[in-house]
């Protein structure tokens, strides 16, 4: 196996086009354990971290551009990003230990294509676009379109993600992410849930997105959530209001979970409802605080 660290997008695309067995990486926190676990080594690994576009982090013209190869530790320490997207930072901050945080990236978390990836539900809830480069030039795709199944993406062999473009939150808008694991650190989500909520001046929900992890082969958006939550004043605690039951039913309708050592399918359906309510409440509270 050879290692290359191109310093431009063109150089990286050339390497990938010339070496069909090549693979890109940033943090290697999934790649190296997979190789250690017996997966055949790629003939060439292409390190994306020296390409300036992949490590850029800035807000411009109503968007945040977040480099796909920035380690989670840098994202969680960034005050502007944390204020804009607290839920995304929560998701990124839950990936592994401090050691893993020093390496793991949003691009890697997405392209590893695990249904349980913690940073993906907030990216989808925020309507983030992935900027993808490859032999055919540059294109963009919704983050929700990148992963097509466990360990499978829609990217071709010469393509990689340089950055994510995330619409800057409008006034009255915020997000949240929570996951459930049986302990407090160092585990993979049994269920994860992200919510993005926009409220009007009276605290009434104007727009909502709820996205779930680890309950289906890919991250799934609860598309009915917006219709259920719009026009509601979302309380500080999810109580007995009937719309929570409606949200719960919509959540369950999106779940297609597996039974495994982390939880049964039935358990995941239950936990998904609880986490969806909690993240909606948290995102709505944060949204009100921006007014």
């Amino acid at each position: 196996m050879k290692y290359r660290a191109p310093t431009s997008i063109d150089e990286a695309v050339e390497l990938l086009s010339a070496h069909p067995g090549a693979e890109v990486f940033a943090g290697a926190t999934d790649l190296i354990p997979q190789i250690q676990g017996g997966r055949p080594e790629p003939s060439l690994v292409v390190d994306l971290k020296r390409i300036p576009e992949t490590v850029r982090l800035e807000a411009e013209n109503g968007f945040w551009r977040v480099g796909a190869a920035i380690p989670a530790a840098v994202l969680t320490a960034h005050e502007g990003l944390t204020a804009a997207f607290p839920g995304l930072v929560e998701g990124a901050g839950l990936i592994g230990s401090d050691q893993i945080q020093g390496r793991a990236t949003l691009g890697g978390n997405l392209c590893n294509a695990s249904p349980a990836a913690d940073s993906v539900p907030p990216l989808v809830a925020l309507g983030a676009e992935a900027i993808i480069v490859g032999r055919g030039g540059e294109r963009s795709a919704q983050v929700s379109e990148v992963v097509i199944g466990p360990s499978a993406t829609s990217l071709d062999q010469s393509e990689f993600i340089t950055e994510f473009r995330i619409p800057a939150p409008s006034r009255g808008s915020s997000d949240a992410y929570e996951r459930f694991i049986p302990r407090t650190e160092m585990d993979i989500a049994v269920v994860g849930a992200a919510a993005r909520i926009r409220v009007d001046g009276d605290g009434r929900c104007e727009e909502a997105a709820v996205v779930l992890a680890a309950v289906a082969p890919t991250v799934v958006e609860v598309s009915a959530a917006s219709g259920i939550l719009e026009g509601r004043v979302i309380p500080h605690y999810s109580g007995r209001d009937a719309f929570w039951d409606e949200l719960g039913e919509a959540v369950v309708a999106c779940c297609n979970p597996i039974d495994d050592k982390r939880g049964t399918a039935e358990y995941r359906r239950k936990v998904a409802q609880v986490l969806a309510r909690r993240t909606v409440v948290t995102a709505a509270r944060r949204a009100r605080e921006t007014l």
Partner: protein
Amino acid sequence: MSRTHVTCVLNGDEIDFLCNDYQTLLSALRDELGMIGTKEGCGTGDCGACSVILDGQLVCSCLVFAPEVEGRRVETIEGLAEVDHLHPLQDSFLEGAAFQCGVCTPGFLMAAKALLDRNPSPTETEVRYGVAGNLCRCTGYDKIVRSILDAAARMSDPERQKEAT
């Protein structure tokens, strides 16, 4: 197969070494440079025994390809003590009996250093989260956590610092 020439700053000194592209930083440190203070545990980023600080970030050196450190700063356990005295964390670990077999200790010390660099007065909870990526099969963790808290107190108290030097 031709080997790759890597230049980096290791514990403050500019050094260079030859490695194979598939080698990890852990393997380069131990097998090419003879720096065997950094330990190998799981080799998959779960146990933290191989923790080093790379450009200010705590990482598992088993999850870094050796050629990646070209031009970068690497801090290992060998650079923790000063010439004539131990780092306060090392003093606290010794006094607090924070290790038994010792294999996890270099990784815990580097994780604790990274934590205190970022947060000089952590709470017990913050310490426990800060070393959540390090496994110890001997101590039950309590002595390690208490020793890190003791080192933090020592480092923020000028009187105790004077004592140590």
